[in-house]
């Protein structure tokens, strides 16, 4: 199967949160409680074990280039989701094999295998996956694996009224994203940039299967600017451990020699 994913174009997102609702409904996720956060219209605030789509709201007192408003103002939205990285930190850290790569190249967590060790939670460079304490297991977006298997597009993409969330084969999405970026630049929106589309854009994850078109720096949307999968850097840590172990053996030999008797 061809890799499938999301291209989330934030320039057409209207912040309606239909994706959040569709995701909750389709996956039968429990509610998160009613809470007013005071941060624009964002009362969900982050991706959680029971929130697999999250819409970020940025009310800013400056304009986008090429925009005319009565006073300096712009309102940006982003529907955040698990990125289904090509090199996934959670998957590489999972000791039980609960996290697997599916035939659609998405990262899927098998709830019947997960034992809730919590290692994926610290391994994800995006802060996506989390352990649900009363359930005991970790949960995250499945890229609607059940829908994909029967040829349907994921619930969030299906419901998105402006096609801000676009689902399809990753190769096609990349062409679409490039065209959209050129179009926006031509219209004078110079802030537009792609986030994590290819390995060149984001070597730390070797590209995302769910990538974004942003209108501000990634950190403004709470996305890490240069995420790196932890396993990419851990080789030298194993080396240091070997060195330390050698030192420990030397210390123990020296200590036993100190006992006097050979």
């Amino acid at each position, binding site marked *: 199967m061809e890799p499938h994913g999301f291209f989330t174009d934030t320039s057409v997102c209207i912040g309606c949160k239909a994706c959040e609702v569709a995701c909750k409904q389709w*996956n*039968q996720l*429990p*509610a*998160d*409680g009613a809470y007013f*956060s005071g*941060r624009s219209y964002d*009362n*969900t*605030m*982050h991706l959680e074990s*029971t929130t697999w789509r999250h819409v970020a709201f940025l*009310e*800013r*007192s400056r304009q986008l280039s090429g925009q005319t408003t009565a006073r300096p103002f712009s309102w940006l939205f982003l529907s955040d989701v698990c990125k289904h990285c090509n090199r996934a930190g959670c998957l*590489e850290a*999972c*000791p039980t*094999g609960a996290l697997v790569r599916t035939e659609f190249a998405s990262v899927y967590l098998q709830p019947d*295998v997960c*034992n*809730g*060790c*919590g290692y994926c*939670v*610290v*391994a994800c460079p995006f*802060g996506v*996956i989390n352990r*649900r*304490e*009363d*359930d005991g*297991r*970790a*949960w995250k977006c*499945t890229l609607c*694996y*059940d829908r994909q298997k029967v040829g349907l597009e994921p619930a969030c993409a299906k419901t998105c009224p402006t096609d801000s969330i676009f689902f399809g084969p990753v190769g096609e999405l990349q062409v679409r994203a490039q065209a959209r970026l050129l179009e926006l630049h031509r219209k004078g929106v110079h802030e537009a940039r792609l986030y994590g589309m290819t390995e060149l854009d984001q070597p730390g994850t070797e590209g995302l299967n769910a990538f974004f078109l942003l209108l501000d720096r990634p*950190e403004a949307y*709470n*996305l890490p*600017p*240069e995420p790196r999968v*932890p396993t990419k*850097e*851990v080789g*030298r*840590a194993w080396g240091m*451990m070997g060195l*330390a*172990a050698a030192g*420990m053996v030397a210390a*123990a030999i*020296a*200590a036993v020699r*100190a*006992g006097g*008797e050979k």
Partner: protein
Amino acid sequence: MIGLFTKQQATAERELDPQLAHLTGEAAKLHVKHPAAQQGVPPIPLWQKVPSQPGEAAHQDYYRLPLLKEPVWIWSVPAYFYLGGVAGGSALLATLAHGKRGLKKLASLCRGLAFAGTTVGPALLTYDLGRMGRFLNMLRVFRPSSPMSVGSWSLAGSGALATLALIQGDRPAAKPTTRALAGGGLVVSGYTGVLLGNSANPLWQGTRLTLPLLFTASAIASTSALLELFTLNRQEERVVRRFGTIGKIAEAGSMALFELEAAQNPEAARALNRSKAGVLWNGAKGFLVAGIAVSLLPGHSVGKRRAAGTLTTIGALCLRFGLLEAGKEAVRDPQAVIKAQRKGDGR
């Protein structure tokens, strides 16, 4: 009646009528024991005073909300870190003391400690699991990319070997067993450092080179400190003292190196001096220095040995708990993640 109860539990917080809709979604089996409060409880605790507008150019982030998730591990994980270190150090000493006439008691004590560490340790880890009944899934696959998988297999192997070594006792035939046990013990005492370093946590990832040193050095110090609490003959006392001196110096040195490596990300390093993490980390330093000071006092009294051993043990425990707390504290500041990634990036 029971069927009705489970049905209600399954549909909790989902607002669906089980008569009309089937619970077959991906998250249908997600158990809700504590439904989210209807109002007033923030979905994430707010660690800082948060502006109602997102950060502007100078301080860009998203309402200063944490970018990463906090580690979910509870007290039993750092307790295991300590016990695993003791088990590893004891396994090594048990091997080297094996068959040496004057060190018979030390060897048997170390075999006992290695056994205790590698059996109580997995129990502590299981206690932290969200699904304790599935602890055997740790041995379902071997994933070399996951230090936790490597550690699970080493711990399981060491546990088996430690049990065998305990049964075989000081018979000469036990030599291969103890040798293999020592190998497993070395991994068990050091892999925890790699495990923390192999994470996206800004503090732990930033200190991934010194964490294995720190855990191994502290394993030496904790093993000898615990052995100092037991009554041993003079020859064995000398062994333990020498092992402890090296361990304590190495631990102090690794802590200094760790702080140096952490200082490369000042936002993350601040966690080492903040709130609970700060108390524990500075406590670890204080108790270690006190342990060294007491052992430098003249004389060879039992009381002195026990005092030094106790102080060093408390220090080693503070170190493990402090590292976990500091990891939790570090992610509460999104700039710890953002600034470190922006370094050397001109965009």
